[in-house]
């Protein structure tokens, strides 16, 4: 009979009306991120969706208006993938996911992070192309995507990123030519090594995705 009692508890849980949680969109976005990640060392343990906002979660930093400005998850032994919801962190300045084991494509929605200063995703297993939408990251200064499995060409749209100071895509599987316009005029060759890139772009002669 204990059997049936357990069942009735189970059923009543199933049928009970779950109360709505206090939450905000940034917290939801981070919680969605957590659900996609595998976190064997519990770096994300404090990410409790029941809390009002994510500002007291570890490795999340907010500004005085409780908007998430930094995500410090470098070297955190996490794997899994990223999802489009990360693009909802409109106030994010630092996205630090370096030296983990995250795979899959880089979501194009990251291009919505208008305030992003630094995107460090180096040392993961990201694949697919560098999203063209990154051209919308007008505040971006640091973009380090080195040591992944990215393929395709370097989007020409990135040459419009005036603030971009550090760009590193070395050790990927990129192809085509290296842009030379805008900030790309000053990036050292080390930023491009160990790809299938064909050297600097020769304007007007070869399409930039030549060899892709």
């Amino acid at each position, binding site marked *: 009979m204990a059997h049936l009692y357990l*069942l009735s508890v189970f059923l009543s849980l199933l049928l009970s*009306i779950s109360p*709505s949680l*206090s939450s905000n969109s940034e917290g939801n976005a981070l919680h969605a991120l957590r659900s996609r990640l595998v976190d064997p060392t519990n770096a994300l343990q*404090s990410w409790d969706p029941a809390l*009002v906002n994510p500002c007291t979660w*570890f490795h999340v930093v907010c500004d005085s208006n409780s908007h998430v400005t930094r995500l410090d998850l470098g070297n955190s032994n996490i794997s899994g993938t990223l999802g489009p919801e990360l693009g909802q962190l409109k106030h994010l300045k630092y996205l*630090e996911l370096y030296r983990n084991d995250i795979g899959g494509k880089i979501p194009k929605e990251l291009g919505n992070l208008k305030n992003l200063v630094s995107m*460090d995703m180096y040392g993961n297993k990201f694949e697919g192309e560098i999203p063209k939408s990154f051209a919308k990251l007008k505040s971006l200064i640091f973009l380090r995507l080195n040591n992944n499995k990215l393929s395709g060409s370097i989007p020409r749209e990135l040459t419009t990123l005036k603030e971009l100071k*550090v760009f590193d895509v070395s050790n990927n599987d990129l192809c085509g030519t290296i842009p030379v316009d805008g900030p790309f005029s000053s990036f050292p060759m080390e930023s491009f090594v160990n790809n299938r890139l064909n050297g600097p772009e020769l304007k007007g002669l070869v399409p930039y995705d030549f060899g892709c």
Partner: protein
Amino acid sequence: MAASQKLYAALFHVLLLSLFPLKAKSSARTQAEALVQWRDTLSSSPPPLTSWSRSDLHNLCRWSAVSCNPTSRTVSRINLYSLSITGTLARFNFTPFTDLTRFDIQNNSVSGTIPSAIGSLSKLNYLDLSVNLFEGSIPVQISRLTELQYLSLYNNSLSGAIPFQLASLPKVRHLDLGANYLENPDWSKFSMPSLEYLSFFLNELTSEFPGFITNCRNLTFLDLSLNNFTGQIPELLYTNLGKLETLILSTNLFQGPLSPNISKLSNLKNLSLQNNLLSGQIPESIGLISDLQIVELFTNSFQGNIPSSIGQLKHLEKLDLRMNALNSTIPPELGHCTNLSYLALADNQLSGELPLSLSSLSKLTDMDLSENYLTGKISPTLISNWTELTSLQVQNNFFYGYIPPEIGKLTRLQYLFLYNNTFSGSIPPEIGNLKELSNLDLSGTHISGPLPPTLWDLTNLQILNLFRNNINGKIPPQVGNLKMLKTLDLNTNQLHGELPQTISNITSLTYISLFSNNFSGSIPSDLGKYMPSLKYAIFSNNSFSGEVPPELCSGLSLQQFTVNSNNFTGSLPTCLKNCLELTRVRLDENRFTGNITDAFGVLPNLVYVALSDNQFIGEISPDWGECKNLTNLMMDGNRISGEIPPELGKLPELQRLSLGSNDLTGRIPAALGSLSMLFHLDLSNNHLIGEVPRNLTSLQGLQYLDLSNNKLTGNIPKELGSYEKLSRLDLSHNNLSGDIPFELGNLNSLQYLLDLSSNSLSGAILQNLGKLSQLEILNVSHNHLSGRIPASLSSMVSLSSYDFSYNELTGPLPTEGVFQNASARSFVENPGLCGKAEGLSQCPTTDSSKSSKVNKKVLIGVVVPVCGLLVIATIFAVLLCFRKIKIVTNGESSNSVIWER
């Protein structure tokens, strides 16, 4: 010999003959004796069995719970259901009951195994052992009960495989083995064509759909729910079992589509297939099963439309399609199902507006359309007709417009969930008519305006969630009318004013959350005093002042106590240290005073504590070391004194320790080196002395280390260089001496800051620092560093700010990379430093071989303007000297403009 043999034989014969009539007589007596004997073994026998008496053995047929066959005068039926019998059947002697047709002991507490001797009841046609505590396996001897028509072993603890020998019971029409722990037999040995009722509900069956069932053509009731059956539902079920009225296959692992042949089950009244892995479309033919009353298909993977043919099901009372992937609109035909009382379409991808035809569903009592993409207004016409509703749930959709005042007509409502929609306007005062309402959730609905005074007429309310809206005004004293209230969540609105005194009288309150409003004044001083179950007290981000009610935690049930970012003053409630359930305490950013040394005791469940930015005094109690679940301990920005207790090193879960900006003295305890989970350590702005403990380097997860503004001495431990995750390191404003260790160049995660300024560091800046290619801010100013700035530093491509000033650096500035546009301010007071930066002296051209190569044109190009400038400067200086007397009173300010800092 022969004669005596004959005599014996004759005697034996007589004896035998005399036994025959005797046997019938003594059989009734044996039965009576067997019953009494068994009764006496029971540990609890009910009053009705007192009529079973040894002194009354001959009146067996008058005993309670026993019926006799009128001709044989022996027991034909034993009916012992629901008599609270406790015991076993182990000593029930079944053998004498040769005429027994019915044995019913349903709903008692009979335990032990089912005795195999039960197989001797050869005339039994009705056996009900259900709702008892039988365990072990089903005895195969049951298969000897060949007359059996009704067999129920429902709700016991029977285990093992179902004996295939049951198949040799040709007459069984009703077989209920539900709610046991039974396992698969070899179904191929089964054949029970007489079955009309079959239940294997809640067992541990794992096979595919048992094939024999599709040959039970007389089945009207089939329940296989709550097992782990797999595979598809066989097509033969639809074609063969046309008499089925009830089909329950729920909570299994059935997969594949639902066949359009389902319509061949033309007598079906109840179709329950929920909690499986069924996919594909819901067949349109379902509308042909005209007797359907209950359709439960929730928690599957059905896609596509809700078939409009459902509108033909005139007898439909319950339709539950929740938690599928249906992506149509709601068909207007659904409005024809006028007998519907329960309609649940929640958690699909349904879109569009609510068809007005649904207004005909006037018998609806439960309606759940939540978690869809439904939109449009909630029409007053619809609402007005749903007057029987007890539960209305449309949360998590895109409904808009006003909440119609007609909602006040739904006077039977107990649950009203409208949360997370984009309504406008305010809460209609008519809501006060919903006297039965127990759960009201309008959170996140964009509603504004004040709380209607009628809200406080809802005296049955248990949950009131109005958070994340634009509600303004005050909470009136009438809130105290809500005597049943357990949850009051008004967070993130624009409510203002003081909390009324009456709120303290809501004794049932367990959860009060008012954060992020504009409340002011003090919280009623007796809040909590009469709330023994208060678990959550959340008042953060308001302008509350005065003291926290001293008896807030007197119920000792408090789990979360968060009052951060207010103007609270005074000391903390003394009951806090006895609230062993506490998990989260936030008092930061208030003006609390008082001594915290003993404010918290050993709180084993505590996870998060923030006391930052108050005026607490006292010391850090060693008891914190016993709060084993603590992950966050922040006390920065107070006036806490004394030493850091080494006991803090005993917190295995601690991730953030922030004790900065206090009056802490003594040394940094080496024990902190055991905090293996720590990623954030801030001990800045204290009066700590001694060296940086070398064993802190076992803190391999450290990302943030701030020891600045103390009185630390000794060298920078070279072991710091092993912090692979360190992204911010501040050791500035101490008395550290010696070299900058080479190993700091290995901190390849260093990103935000490396500040070693204002110490007594000496020696050279090593080339290795140039490897910190992600570092953005570097400050080594105000030390005694000497030698050249290594050219390798020019490859620190991420540097946005650096300061080398006030050292003893010499030689030329590197000219490449980050030094290209160097500002003099970063290098001042390094007498030996030279370079192109404005304000630095030009480097002497020491390299003669190079200088000889300098093109004459360049030389002229440099010398001429320099000489020219010198001439102009001299003239300017002379002029200035002449005018000095006039501007002397302004001297200081012009200086400060030039040397702006």
